[in-house]
């Protein structure tokens, strides 16, 4: 009985070693999907698909030799499914904390930039008068 239980646990552990882990990070306006079986075994050439909250496919790609694939940030929240050979599959959900704009117009960026310069001006004018008052 103990032998059977031990063998069962061993099987479960080795199954876990073959599970596909999927990991998503965001760097500026790029999502990085990283998948691996173990640290020394990245999921190379695996199919990566991204689904929005409604379940619609909006992007897909293939992982590179290091198990990574890169996507331009298009959606705030999405689900990623990575499919490897022999039926291995892993998935993860990701929610970006940063606002993901679909396509920001040049005018919009320009206005935001002007606003930012305005804020910088006002802030340092305030700092100037505070320093002047102290002196």
């Amino acid at each position: 009985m103990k032998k059977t239980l031990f063998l069962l646990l061993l099987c479960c552990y080795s199954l876990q070693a073959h599970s596909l882990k999927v990991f998503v990070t965001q760097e500026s306006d790029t999502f990085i999907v990283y998948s691996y079986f173990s640290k020394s075994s990245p999921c190379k050439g695996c199919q990566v698909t991204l689904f929005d909250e409604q379940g619609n496919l909006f992007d897909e790609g293939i992982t590179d030799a290091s198990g990574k694939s890169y996507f331009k940030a298009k959606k705030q929240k999405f689900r990623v499914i990575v499919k490897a050979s022999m039926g291995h599959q892993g998935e993860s959900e990701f929610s970006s904390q940063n606002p993901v704009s679909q396509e920001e117009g040049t005018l919009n960026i320009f206005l935001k930039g002007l606003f930012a310069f305005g804020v910088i001006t006002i802030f340092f004018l305030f700092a100037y008068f505070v320093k002047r008052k102290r002196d």
Partner: protein
Amino acid sequence: MHISDGVLSSQILIAGNVIGVGVLLYSFKALQQEKVLLCAVMSALFFMASFIHIPIGPTSTHLLMSGIVGVFLGGGAFLAIFVGLFLQALLFGYGGLSVLGINLLIIATPSLLAYFLFQFKCKSPFKQAIISFLMGALPVLFSALLLSFTLAINSEEFLSVAYLSFFSNIPVMLIEGVFMVFIMNYITKVSPKLLERR
């Protein structure tokens, strides 16, 4: 170079924000009245630099200009960079509001290197160019190291992302080093008073 919201653990966030507030208060207190305008200009420069993207393979990175901010402001760089980071997070989603403290420490702390290097004056133009290059490149290098270290201590799973973050900033390091050589050369000719050592 910016870490986004939701990546770091709460312990690192809290520690980073507490230290960040401390250095900010010190930076504001130490800022002299005659330096406020320069601080505003440097803050605007830092803000604009993030829009200059450098494509690197599948991803991209951006200029920092923390070296030049450090040269002109010294400890005041923390205030200038903080304002830039805050506006970037608020308006364009670069980085995040909860990670402001960490991002500030990652980017602004190495800028002090540029300030210390600036104190060395060489008569040889070649040696001066080398120092100028290091003033631009080393802050980026150490920011990349700090970024990688922060990601690595956050979680083991971030190790590969940490390596990627480090190596993707090497071109930025080289570009900023070259920029700094030209900038310092130009300012020496046009307005040498700005480069008076203090």
